[in-house]
């Protein structure tokens, strides 16, 4: 027989029943809530002009919207229920930390996703820092040029 894992929910968190086709959040909204889908299906999407573009279908036992709980940035995408759903809304980092600690089986996927994004972001930071260093070198040489009169030398580090 297949056993279906259910998250352990502590007393401060509640499972909400949400109807089909309900918008949970929209792009650019300031909302730090992380969501955990206990049952049902949720769509993450963005608009290109007036058209909706699907980005991800959230499945049972997956988090969504969790990034903003740490970044406090406006929502990057929209989220809407596709079916009647059971959802846990997690409003603080402490609540999320406790929820993950009590449901350790959920942490692996979450950490895997974050490590993937971290690897990509580190690469972008390194590229940006290299570009910044090159700009500084050019500026330094240009400043020297002003100090010492005309010069045709220009150093650009790639």
């Amino acid at each position: 027989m297949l056993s279906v894992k259910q998250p352990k929910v502590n007393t401060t968190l509640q499972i909400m029943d949400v109807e089909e086709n309900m918008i949970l959040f929209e792009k650019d909204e300031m909302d730090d809530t992380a969501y955990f889908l206990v049952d049902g299906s949720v769509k993450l999407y963005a608009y290109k002009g007036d058209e909706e573009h699907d980005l991800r279908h959230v499945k049972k036992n997956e988090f969504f919207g969790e990034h903003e709980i740490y970044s406090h940035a406006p929502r990057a995408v929209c989220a809407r229920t596709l079916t009647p759903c059971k959802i846990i809304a997690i409003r603080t980092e402490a609540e999320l930390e406790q929820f993950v600690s009590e449901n350790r089986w959920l942490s692996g996927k979450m950490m895997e996703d974050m490590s993937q994004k971290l690897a990509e972001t580190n690469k972008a930071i390194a590229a940006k820092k290299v570009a910044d260093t090159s700009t500084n070198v050019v500026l330094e040489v240009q400043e020297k040029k002003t100090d010492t009169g005309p010069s045709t030398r220009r150093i650009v580090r790639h």
Partner: protein
Amino acid sequence: MLPVINAKPDQIIFEEGQNDHRMFILLEGSVQLYVTRNGKEIDLETVDKFHFFGEIEMFQKKPRTLSAKAVTNTRMAVIKTRMQLEQFMSEHPQFSGKMTRMMGHRLAQAEQSIA
């Protein structure tokens, strides 16, 4: 019990490109994470006591994307495999929550710095 290793200032713990999937929890000292471009070290982050590093490659199973070296005299607990990490988290249930939180912060900060 996890094995503990020591490193002296400037000692390299791992280097970019290495096939090394270990993760480290810093017990004492601090560690610099950096990449080398055109022979120059570019600092990405300094990791302090009770924080961890090297987790990206443990999850991604890919060569190191950056290098790490000790800034001061350093003591680190070493987690060699995903299985060991799972075991450690089952013995210390709060760690999974804390690790998720730290990774979330690290990612948010990293994204902010390239925004």
